[in-house]
């Protein structure tokens, strides 16, 4: 495995309400990996992502990141596009730079490059309400990519989109990952999505979440439309489904 960019040791999280979201998650993620966190709804996947991003502290355990603590090294994409409705596409993508207090020609160019990279050239001046759901999600991804993060955290980003849009965005995400090679942690509850995108799949149990299976994906790169119909892909999906079923009903 390449040098780890992220190491989790016994990360647990319980909330003041008594809910136990995570129970002892151990995970090591290598630089440049595309890791899917696959699990049923409410298994604490999102909580885990927030802990990694430093948005919420773990109740116990350690989360070690091998990257600069400077803002912008981590990109985050939520399930909702989470855009500022009063800002244009460019304005939204410029947000990380605006917060860092510097918007020069270089930052502007990086933001516009990110907008082009997600296929939104020509929409730089559009407002979110003028865009479709898929396009808004592209803006959200462009914003996360603008700072060229080492670690990209995606929290079920395509769950609310229709199938056609989701497939297109899957391919775009793969292309962006191949171009820039950030480490990606991709939370999903779709077996097919995780199998198609990832280099590795971590399957999580229902609440309290822990990692019950760690599957390497050996499908050839780059993934194409042909991948989706290959027997290897079908076999992998079956394996992942079995792991997920196991994770949801450990007694069986």
């Amino acid at each position, binding site marked *: 495995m390449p040098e780890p960019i992220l190491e989790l040791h016994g990360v647990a999280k319980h909330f003041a309400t008594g809910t136990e979201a995570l129970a002892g998650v151990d995970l090591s993620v290598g630089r440049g990996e595309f890791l899917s966190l696959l699990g049923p709804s409410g298994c604490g996947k999102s909580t885990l992502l*927030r802990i990694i*991003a*430093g*948005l919420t502290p773990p109740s116990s355990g350690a989360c070690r990141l091998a990257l600069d603590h400077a*803002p*912008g090294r*981590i990109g*985050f994409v*939520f399930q*909702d596009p*989470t855009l*500022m*409705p*009063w800002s244009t596409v460019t304005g939204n993508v410029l*947000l*990380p730079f*605006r*917060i*860092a207090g510097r918007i020069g020609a270089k930052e502007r160019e990086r933001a516009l490059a990110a907008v082009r990279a997600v296929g939104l050239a020509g929409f730089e001046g559009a*407002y*979110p*309400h003028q865009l479709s759901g898929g396009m808004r999600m592209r803006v959200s991804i462009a914003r996360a990519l603008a700072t060229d993060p080492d670690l990209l955290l995606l929290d079920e980003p395509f769950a609310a989109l229709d199938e056609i849009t989701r497939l297109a965005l899957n391919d775009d995400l793969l292309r962006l990952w191949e171009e820039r090679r950030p480490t990606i942690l991709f939370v999903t509850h779709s077996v097919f999505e995780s199998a198609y995108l990832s280099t590795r799949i971590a399957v999580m149990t229902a609440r309290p979440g822990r990692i019950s299976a760690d599957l390497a994906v050996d499908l050839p790169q780059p993934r194409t439309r042909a991948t989706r119909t290959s027997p290897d892909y079908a076999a992998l999906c079956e394996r992942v489904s079995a792991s997920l079923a196991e994770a949801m009903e450990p007694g069986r």
Partner: protein
Amino acid sequence: MNRLWLRIAAPIAIGIVFLALWQAGAWLSGVAVYILPAPSDIAVSLWTDGPSLMGSLLVTLRITLAALAAAAILGGAIALVFSLSRIVEISFFPYAVILQVTPIVAIAPLIIIWVHTPFLALLTCAWIVAFFPIVSNTTVGLNSADRNLLALFRLYGASRAQVLWFLRIPTALPYFLAGLRISGGLALIGAVVAEFVAGTGGAETGLAYRILEAGYRLAIPRLFAALFLLSVTGILIYLVLDFISRQLLRNWHESATAEEEE
């Protein structure tokens, strides 16, 4: 397009029918003009007393607009302070409510005694009536920032000032403007009530005093004419504020962009 036309034509048609019935009723019943003047009597009064009534309207309007401006600025500032400190909000909000629910008629005499400049006294009364919707709306708005956006701001290391300026204030803008539209009407009501209580008969008499005076003199058509001007003013204030609000929000807020999405 068709609907816009209907939205203008339908209320006007109802108004015309209503006025016609009123006119016919006044003629046929022969009710004395000092009890119920016909619309034609009121129109005549508007024509003859118009210039002097307009002068009074300007006096009232000046108080109204000054009170509204003060409500917008001070109300916004109070909401900002509330949003910055939860303890300040908890401590002071009940007093803002008390000020709001106390009938202005009851405290106007005190204010008129305490504040010597008539203009300032009336302004204070109108302000008390007008400021609360702005404070309460803007406070809600400042606290309504999207939770995920807040998380994102934290992730990128935003300071509190940046969160306020780039996230909370823009989020609050539609709430503030909704409060402003309510306050516009309230400022006018506040100014009129204050004038009723103050009853200044000096050099500058507002429209409210003209209504009282016309009532005393049984100049009922003039009373109606003054009322008419007051209503038109209230409607105009609302329309202007609504227009400003749409202009400011036209790029992004649902309330301003709904028509386009259909």
